[in-house]
């Protein structure tokens, strides 16, 4: 088993419409670098100049917001699924 990243609609142009991408990275931060290597341009959409996840991007590992975990340092294990989701208004 590997880890998967679910690509949100606005970014699928960069992934040739691939919705689910398999990765081998060990942390969320590394996953973003790995995505960048395979789909150039995707990194700058997700993180700002300082390397921080952009404020309107929410990243989840197995349905938990990484801000409740260890942010970019959040470890990944086999079978984990990362979701990248734009913030939504409510309520």
């Amino acid at each position, binding site marked *: 088993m590997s880890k998967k990243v679910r690509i949100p609609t606005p970014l699928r142009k960069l992934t040739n419409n691939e919705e689910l991408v398999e990765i081998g990275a060990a942390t969320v931060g590394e996953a973003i670098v790995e995505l960048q290597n395979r789909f150039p341009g995707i990194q700058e959409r997700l993180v700002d100049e300082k390397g921080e996840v952009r404020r309107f991007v929410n990243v989840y590992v197995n349905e938990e917001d990484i801000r409740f975990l260890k942010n970019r340092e959040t470890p990944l294990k086999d079978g984990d699924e990362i979701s990248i989701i*734009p913030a939504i*208004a409510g*309520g």
Partner: protein
Amino acid sequence: MKALKCRECGREYPLTATHVCEFDFGPLEVAYDYDRIKKTLTKAAIESRPKSMWRYRELLPIAGEPTVGRQVGFTPLIKADRLAKKLGIRELWIKNDAVNYPTLSFKDRVVSVALSRAKELGFETVACASTGNLANSVAANAASAGLKSYVFIPSDLEQGKILNSLIYGANVISIKGHYDEVNRLCAEIAGKFGWAFVNVNMRPYYAEGSKSMAYEIAEQLGWRAPQHTIIPMASGSLLTKIHKGYQELVKVGLIAESSPKVYGAQATGCSPISTAQKAGLDFFKPVKPDTIAKSLAIGTPADGFYALKVMRETNAAAEDVTDDEIRDAIKLLAETEGIFAETAGGVTVGVALKLIARGKIPREDSAVICITGNGLKTLDAVNGYCGEPREIKPSLREFEALLDKDEKVKA
């Protein structure tokens, strides 16, 4: 409407059902041609139109005439003298969206815009992620417009809010989780099925509907912006849009330039925005909600950054209140003004009380409190906190004895 524009980087997009910038995920917002609007949207023109929020139609993002919710809005603005006395402020007004049409919350405004626009764009199915009121409004307005609807809610919602969606024949999907989880799921669903998700891909249009609350307040005050407006915050969108509404009225020449302050109200059990504001931060930390104010229970508020910015720029503040303070404030509003607000209204009145008591809103000023939902939908929250009826036999003697006892208690 000119285009959709990213609030972060300013990139423009066509006026379709899309809500985030492809480059930085920033929210898209509708851009208008204010110079053109200024020419036709005069006070006389507005005052000659029917009393609904559509009298400000040029400032709302649809291309043609409204087709859904034509009667929405223009709710009462009440001069609340008895509550003003209790809160210790010279002048107080209540904008009462607890009696909005047709589902008794401010959400009827945003849904009317979103569904009118959804029909223009050719959608046949509409949907939303909701803490209750939005679901009610989508369900009702979709029914009357002949649209199919799916509403997604957290499973712990008040019974009243659930029934108020089911009755219209909507597909009500209850998600085992809190609102932020419902939201995350809906973001994934929205990308997949080609529906008009009012607060996902229709968000740029939807959110603009909230501005009408500001237009109405200003018109009802005799064409001026109030000094202070106290607004409940869930995602923070309503607060930013009310502020935008006041600014637009200045832009199109309907009111004079002033510096209206907008204050945000949250429940202590879900206060990511007010906590950040009080700490002087320009970013918030997401939280896991735990409050009776379920309509405000959003732990990751999408417009939190902008709400913080607007409060900072208008030199206003945010506050939060506990569940007990919320119930007390619901009772206070009911007993002084005869208005039964839902829990979010308790939050707003409770926060107004705090802001005035702490001198953040000066006692000699004038303020508007926004009541956004109806207490009949959140009966669970106050059940057991407002006394019980006293039962007697159908006997005059028993009733007189009861009155006697009351008199003695008073004496």
